[in-house]
C-alpha cells in the first residue's frame, strides 16, 4: 500500500527532480489564472492582514509537496481494489499490439 515507484513494465522509472519554490509559484499562479481566480486583490505581503499572497502560495506549496505528492505516488493495492477494466496501466502490450488500444478515437 505504500507509495510504489515501480509499475508493470517500467522497473527503472526515473523520478523527476522535486520542483523549486519558484517553479511551484509559477504553477500556482497559472492554475489560478486558468480558473479565473485573482489573488492580487490580497496584499502581496502583509503580516498584519488576515491573508496575503505570500502566505497563500506558501500554504499551497506545502500542500503540493506533502499531501498531493504522497497521494499522487500512492498506488491502489490490487488485492483490495480489483483493477477496473479500463485503466491503461493494466496493459501488458504496447498500444496497438492487442488491437484494443491502437487508435485514440475517443
Amino acid at each position, binding site marked *: 500500500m505504500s507509495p510504489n515507484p515501480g509499475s508493470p513494465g517500467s522497473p527503472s522509472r526515473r523520478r523527476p527532480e522535486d520542483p523549486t519554490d519558484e517553479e511551484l509559484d509559477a504553477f*500556482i499562479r497559472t492554475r489560478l489564472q486558468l*480558473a479565473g*481566480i485573482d489573488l492580487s486583490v490580497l496584499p502581496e505581503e502583509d503580516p498584519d492582514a*488576515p491573508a496575503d499572497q505570500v*502566505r497563500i502560495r506558501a*500554504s499551497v506549496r506545502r*500542500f503540493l509537496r506533502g499531501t498531493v505528492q504522497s*497521494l499522487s505516488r500512492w498506488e491502489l493495492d490490487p488485492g*483490495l481494489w480489483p483493477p477496473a477494466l479500463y485503466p491503461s496501466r493494466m496493459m501488458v502490450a504496447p498500444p496497438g499490439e492487442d488491437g484494443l488500444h491502437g487508435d485514440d478515437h475517443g
Partner: protein
Amino acid sequence: MGTTMAEGERPPQDAAIDRRSFVTRMGVITAAAMAGVPLEGRALPPVELLPASGGAGASSSSSSHADPGRAELDGAFPTHPADLKIWQARRLFARGELGAMELLEACLERLDARDPVYRAFNAVPRGQAMEVARALDEETRSLGPGRGLLAGIPLVVKDNLWTAGVLTTANSRIFQGFVPAEDATAWARLRVGGAILLGKTQMGPLATTRAMTPDGEVTTVNAWAPDDPRVSPGGSSSGTATAVAGGVAPAGLGTQTGGSVTVPSLAQGLTGIKPTLGRVSLRGVIPLTYSRDHVGPMARDARDAALLLQVMAGADPADPRTAGLPPVPDYRTAVEPVEGGRGPIPRWSTRLGVPEGWVEVDGDRGRLRRDFLNEMEAAGVRLVDVHPSEEWRELGSGMFNAVRLPERTEPFLEHLRDDVRLFGVSLGSWIQGLFLSGDEYLKGQRARLGLLRLTLEEIFRDCDVVLQPSHLPFDMIGLPLLAMPIGMREVGGRERPDGVLLGGPPLGEERLLALAGAWQARTEHHLARPEAPDAELVETARRGGAEKLRHDVTWVTEHAQ
C-alpha cells in the same frame, strides 16, 4: 453479531442490516457527488435488512423509560432553569412547575450575563422566541401540557443551518445579511416538535475551524477557561458547545465534516452525536463537503442527545441521502439502561473494541481511560482488543482526508472568482481544493470506500462499538460517532473535562446511546459544569477589554476541518 438481549427485546438496528448494502450505498453517494448527479431516492440502493432481523429495522413504539441514574433523582434538579437538561425541563413542565416563558427568560438572562465573555452567539431572535413561548404557555393553560417532545425547550442552532426569518451567515462575508425564507429540515423538525430558537451560534467561518470572525479574531471561548482565548473551545460548532456547557441553553445543534460536533463536545464536557450519513437531512445546511457533512445534537447528557436525534432523524424528500434507510428506531429507549443486578447496564450485550495503545497513556488521561474501561466491564460490556491493520491506519490518515477539498471548492468557485477576500482567513483550504488532480481525487474516493470496507471487515468483525483516538476515519466514511465526558484532568494548571469517542457501525446510533446511557447512569462525570465567568471578567468584556487572540490564514488552513 454476538448480540444477546433481554427476552422480548429487539436487536439494535445495526445488527439487522446488511452492511454490504451500506458500502454500495456509500459508493453511489460518492459517485453522485463526483458526477454532480442529482440523486433521487429511487436511484439510491436501500440499506437492506437481514432476513432474520426480527423487524429490528422498524420503529419501536415503546414510550416507557426508566428513571435516570442515582445522581439525577428529582431532588437533584438544578435550581436555575437554564441549567436544566431537556428531560428535566419536560418533567417540570408536565407538573406545572415551570413554563416555557420562565425557562426562556432564564436562558436569556444567562445569555445577557455571560455572553459578553463567551461570545457564543451570532443572532438572538428575542422577540420571535418570546412570542412562541407565550403562545405555548397559553396553549398549555387551555389544553394542558404534553404536545410535542420539545414543547417550550429553547435550543441554539449553529449559524450554518437555515432558520426562517433569522440571519444565517455561517460567519462568512459570503452570506452576510442572508435571511433564509425556510428552515433547514433538521431545525424545522425540532421547531415542529415545539422547540424555541434561542439563538444562532458562532462558528468558524464556513465551518472550517474554531469560532472566529472572517478576519481571524477569535470569538467564542471555552466555557471552562473563559478568561483564556488560547484554550480551544473545540471545532467549528464551538458556539453551540459553549452556550450549552456554559449554562445558557439546554442543548443545541452542530454540524460535523471533520470533528466539529465531537471535538467541542469533548472539549466542554458534553455528549455529542455525529449520526450515520443520511440519518439526518442536510437540506438547508450551508455545505462544506457534500459527501461528509452531518448535523448532530450537542447536549448535557446522552438522554437529551437521543431525544434531539429522535426528532431530527428520518427521510427527507429534499435530501436524497436520507432515502432508503430503515425507519428511525427508538433512540429514547435505546439510551435507557436496564437493571443488571449490579447496577444499570446497556440493554444489549456489547463488545467494546479497545484499539492497541488507547489505554496505555500516562497521567490523568490514562487513569480516566482505565477507570472507564473498568466501569464498562462492571456494566457487563465485553472488552475486545482491536488491532487495526497498517492499511486501515494509512487509509484513515490526513493524506486521504485532503480528498474532501475539491468538493469544498467547487460549489464556491463563483465566489472565489468574484473576490477571494470574501473567504477571509478560511481562504486557504478553498484554494487548495483547486490543486488536486482528477486522478488523485478518484483514487482518494476509492481509498475512502476501501477504508469503509476495511472498517466493517477488520474493526466491526470483533466488536460492536469501538473506541476511537480520532474522529477522522469515521468522518470520512459516514459512520456514527458519540463523544461524552469521562472525568476531569488537569491541563495547564486548570481542571478540564476529558472524554471518549465511541465509533459505531452503520446505523449504530442505538448501540452508542446504550453504552453512553449506562455509563451516565453509573457515574456522575457528565454532571460537571464550569463555574460562571467572574464579575470582573464580565465587566472587562463588556468594556471590550477582554484578551484578544487572532489567527491568520496559515493557522486556519493547517487546522481546517
